[in-house]
């Protein structure tokens, strides 16, 4: 138990405070077959960063976040517009939008005569290992900024979800019925997209991209394999995140590796275990029913 110290507490807490909102929105993304949205946003923010750099002439986080967030929202807006107005499939409009925005960012960097040092990795994406080093003083206690941001994010997303649970649920599962009883699909869709955009970009800044993308998709996917009830899917997704955060941290501690890499790997491992376990379970059950038939 020698890994148990303040670093463990802060790092796992910050990871968890991002995993929770990621699960909350991720479940709906998986159900709506839009799981790649987070990945798309992570690429699409590049032009926002370039513009933020151009006007602020610094590498500070706040302008970068503002730039990234506005392009993130633009990205989700465009995806929706291509999908709704142009009748392009959801996955295709995601593909079109983010590749185009990313390319725009690359061209913009070339325009700045190639000599600025700019990309998501070096100005936006944080690193979870540094969480305990970047603290704010709150009532005399030194609390990592990532934990403060995470608490804010978790509260915001949880509140929005509680208030709008019925809307999210109906427009996800039965859009036709929802329209019939006068619920605006577009409104709930945009709200969800806005939430995803906010969650991913704020979280990228706190703990890095790969971990956020993993939290957004893998736990909801595991839960999806195990249940077909929405509430259990949300709970299961959070539980799998929690287990992965703790086991991942211990793994990183034992083999001295990247913490986000270790947590994401444990998430993948959980997925594999559940996936293979379910297949074995199915085979066993089939055999059992055969046996009972032959009896």
């Amino acid at each position, binding site marked *: 138990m020698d890994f148990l110290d303040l670093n463990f507490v802060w790092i796992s807490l910050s990871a968890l405070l991002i995993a929770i909102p990621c699960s909350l929105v991720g479940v709906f993304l998986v159900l709506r077959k839009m799981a790649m949205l987070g990945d798309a946003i992570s690429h699409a923010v590049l032009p926002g960063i370039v513009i933020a750099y151009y006007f602020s002439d610094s590498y500070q986080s706040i302008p970068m976040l503002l730039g990234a967030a506005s392009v993130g929202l633009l990205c989700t807006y465009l995806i929706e517009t291509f999908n709704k107005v142009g009748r392009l499939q959801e996955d295709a409009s995601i593909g079109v939008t983010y590749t185009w925005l990313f390319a725009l960012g690359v061209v913009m960097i070339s325009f700045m005569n190639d000599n600025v040092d700019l990309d998501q990795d070096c100005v936006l994406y944080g690193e979870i290992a540094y969480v305990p080093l970047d603290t704010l003083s709150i009532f005399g206690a030194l609390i990592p900024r990532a934990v403060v941001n995470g608490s804010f994010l978790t509260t915001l997303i949880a509140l929005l979800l509680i208030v709008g*649970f019925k809307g999210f649920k109906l427009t996800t599962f039965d859009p036709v019925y929802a329209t019939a009883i006068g619920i605006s699909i577009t409104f709930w869709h945009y709200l969800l997209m806005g939430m995803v955009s906010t969650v991913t970009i704020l979280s990228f800044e706190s703990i890095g991209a790969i971990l956020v993308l993993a939290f957004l998709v893998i736990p909801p996917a595991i839960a999806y394999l195990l249940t077909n009830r929405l509430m259990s899917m949300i709970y299961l997704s959070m539980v799998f995140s929690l287990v992965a955060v703790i086991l991942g941290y211990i793994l990183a501690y034992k083999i001295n590796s990247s913490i986000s890499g270790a947590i994401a790997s444990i998430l993948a491992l959980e997925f594999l275990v559940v996936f293979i376990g379910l297949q074995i379970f199915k085979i066993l059950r089939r055999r059992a029913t055969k046996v009972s038939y032959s009896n």
Partner: protein
Amino acid sequence: MFVGKGKNIMKKLVGFLISCSLLVSCTSSSVEVKSEVENSPISIVTTTGMIGDLLDILLPEEFKVTRLMKAGVDPHYYKATQGDLVLMQKADLIVYNGLHLEGKMTEIFEKLSRRKKVLAVTGALPENRLRKTSEFATGIDPHVWFDVALWSTICEDVAKELVVYYPNWAVKIEENKNRYIDELSALNSEIIVALSSIPQERRVLLTAHDAFAYFGRAYDIDVRGLQGISTSTEYGIKDIEDAVDLIIEKEIKAVFVESSVSPKALQAVVEKCNSKGHDLVIGGELFSDSMGEENTKEGTYIGMLRHNVETIVTALK
């Protein structure tokens, strides 16, 4: 009905958060005691190998210098491990390059400097000796170590700070510094002599990314990078075309790969030149953003520069 279930999540969330904060308050007191027990040797953490080497030379043996970035690592994309975090927390002094060489990590160092001894080696350099790369205030080339005279100034600056931090070892640090400054000035003249054996018109150094601009400025070599200053910007088709034209026009015999950057783009240039009938080879590997393995000749600053100069001279002469 849905709202009721939502409240349930909230309750569990709140409960979880409270238990977490309890855990924090229990563990925090025990941690502080642990770190006070061990206090020798004094631990210094540096980002790049170049800085690690400098501090190893300046400081007496009561200090232990640890480099975060191992050989072959691109400082830009450095990913910290769990152990690195502990190293930085336990370090008495953290030394880094600055000028955004360490990317997003720079911001963490700046914040840490409010609570801890943190030193940017380029922090005291006068602006007129730095190379601007664009009209932006932040657009400054961070690869300062390739100009030996500039590195020598950095050595002086760092020694000055170290004496302030560790006055008990001031004499020793001064001594080490003076010896090393002499070595550096010998190295500087050695490089000038060695490079002068390359005919002026053939002194073109073409590499994957633009890390050698200070080197070029200091030793009168025309330096061309395919990729620009950051290892992340992509090279364009025109960059490759331009490079090929330049090579054929100036009859350059070799281009160079770097230890921490992918050689793909340069291979494209070599193939294109060869298909146009111009003999071009890859002249060897240069160390750019990181040095060789620790405890080898190329794992020291002086050894690394010698290796680079030898490689360049052999290939271009």
